[in-house]
């Protein structure tokens, strides 16, 4: 079935608010908020606001109920075994820091954490900090010339020393999808834990963390068309139950005396303080709306757009494409350079055409280094993009090359 993109776009208030030309191709940085999420956020903050897990009066009880319903909604979106496996966070960065912090307590000197060259700094720096604290070592899965993880090297990189493997599900630079089940198998063989950065995967439809075979999965709400300031961390139930708390404070305790504290069971043990309630409810509303869409039609639509973009870019001699050329095994995140024109200058010129692109190192400097560059431009697609967005990008690029290359 063909996707009714106009109907999808009507579900995003931004397209009514920003006058044309407006071609938003930066969804890998942040997605636009969908109407369902905006409505949930507004409703909570203006008509249903109370703190959760505390009050017994009706408003507070309803807020608590909505908050726990949101947990169940997110659990369903991820196909988790249950809502108690979902820890609400402020975003993927917070989730990955939480994971790195609590898992690092298991590390001994000389233990190894295996990352990949393609990681976003959020799934790299927290592990470096953890390694430094514990005297552990960082190793990295290299990438090929198109930025795909060299999983053929897993055999030599994964050993009895490997305690944690942390990789991205979908690259925020190239859109390449990582074969998580294959890494999960390698991790299981040596008893290592597998942490997955799912920030770029969740906007592309529901998924099954159980089928992936990972132990931890982190993402942000704002990339899946929710509000900023919320996210979730999924952790396999038995693992979560065995982990120490991260932040201390209210709501994460069972009993506190002046000498010591007994902690609450998960997931509350990991949710100290008042959570971002409105953004969490908005995230769940976005997940509910997304889960009801025809993902086979959306995937076809995104693939058509991606093909149009890749074809267009490949006809421009000055363009250097980074990342895989194949449409399969990737999502619509496309990094490219223009010979003789810096990525920021490309993005600035395209702004004149109403085209919103990201330029820079995309918080993935090791990958930039592997590509032998310091910065690329990046176009990233979401379900609300259409052919006009791609054509505006290609037209603006042709003009930029005439002016600056």
């Amino acid at each position, binding site marked *: 079935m063909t996707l009714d993109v106009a109907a999808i776009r009507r579900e995003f208030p931004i397209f009514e608010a920003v006058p044309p030309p407006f071609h938003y191709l930066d969804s890998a940085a942040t997605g636009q908020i969908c109407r369902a999420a905006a409505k949930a956020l507004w409703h909570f903050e203006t008509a249903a606001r109370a703190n959760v897990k505390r009050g017994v009066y009706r408003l507070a009880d309803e807020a608590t109920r909505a908050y726990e319903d949101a947990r169940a909604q997110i659990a369903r979106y991820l196909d988790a075994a249950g809502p108690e496996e979902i820890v609400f966070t402020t975003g993927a960065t917070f989730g990955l820091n939480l994971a790195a912090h609590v898992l690092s307590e298991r590390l001994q000197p000389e233990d190894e954490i295996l990352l990949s060259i393609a990681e976003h700094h959020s799934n790299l720096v927290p592990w470096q900090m953890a390694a430094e604290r514990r005297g552990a070592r960082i190793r990295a899965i290299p990438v090929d010339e198109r930025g795909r993880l060299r999983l053929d090297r897993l055999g030599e990189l994964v050993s009895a020393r490997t305690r944690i493997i942390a990789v991205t599900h979908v690259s925020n630079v190239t859109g390449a999808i990582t074969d998580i089940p294959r890494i999960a198998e390698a991790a299981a063989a040596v008893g290592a834990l597998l942490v997955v950065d799912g920030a770029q995967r969740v906007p592309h439809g529901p998924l099954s963390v159980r089928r992936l075979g990972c132990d931890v999965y982190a993402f942000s709400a704002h990339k899946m068309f929710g509000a900023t300031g919320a996210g979730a961390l999924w952790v396999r139930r038995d693992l979560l139950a065995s982990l120490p708390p991260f932040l201390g404070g209210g709501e994460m305790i069972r009993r506190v005396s002046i000498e010591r504290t007994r902690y609450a069971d998960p997931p509350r043990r990991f949710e100290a303080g008042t959570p971002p309630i409105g953004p969490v409810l908005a995230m769940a509303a976005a997940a509910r709306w997304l889960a009801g869409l025809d993902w086979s039609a959306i995937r076809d639509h995104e693939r058509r757009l991606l093909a149009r973009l890749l074809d267009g870019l490949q006809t421009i001699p000055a363009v250097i494409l980074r990342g895989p050329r194949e449409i399969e095994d990737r999502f619509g995140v496309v990094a490219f350079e223009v010979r003789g024109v810096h*990525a920021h200058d490309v993005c600035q*010129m395209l702004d004149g055409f109403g085209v919103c692109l990201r330029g820079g190192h995309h918080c993935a400097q090791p990958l930039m280094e592997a590509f032998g560059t310091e910065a690329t431009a990046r176009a990233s697609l979401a379900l609300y993009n259409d052919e006009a967005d791609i054509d505006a990008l290609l037209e603006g690029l042709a003009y930029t090359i005439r*002016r600056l290359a």
Partner: protein
Amino acid sequence: MSADLYNEQIVAAARAADGAGNLADPDVVVERDNPLCGDRIRLELHLRQGRIAALAHRTRGCLLTRAAASLLARRARGLDVAAARALRARIERLLAGGETAEDPDLAMFRPVASVRSRHECVLLPFEALVHAFESAESGPEAS
């Protein structure tokens, strides 16, 4: 429109790459990164009695950064630390929309004032210069 940033003077200054290269036995070497995009300038100075006798730079960056590096190279000779700070302050005022002096070299950056996210691009070489003087005061080691 964004393309207005790229006036002919900026494009010409960036392409001229004045001062691009290296010095033999520099007295000071510093590197400065723009965290936004990873752009980097490496500055090398010969100093005589606290003033710049020669400056060379290697700049990996956007047109704005390269144009600013060219401008810096043209202006560098004879500057001391106070003059370097004053030059940086003038650029900052210009980007804040407050510098009105008729200096055609500086004025080419005036359109950048309206694009907050690009101020760092123009400032990077001037930041590096002040950093170079500070590092010369604290020792010859590259940083």
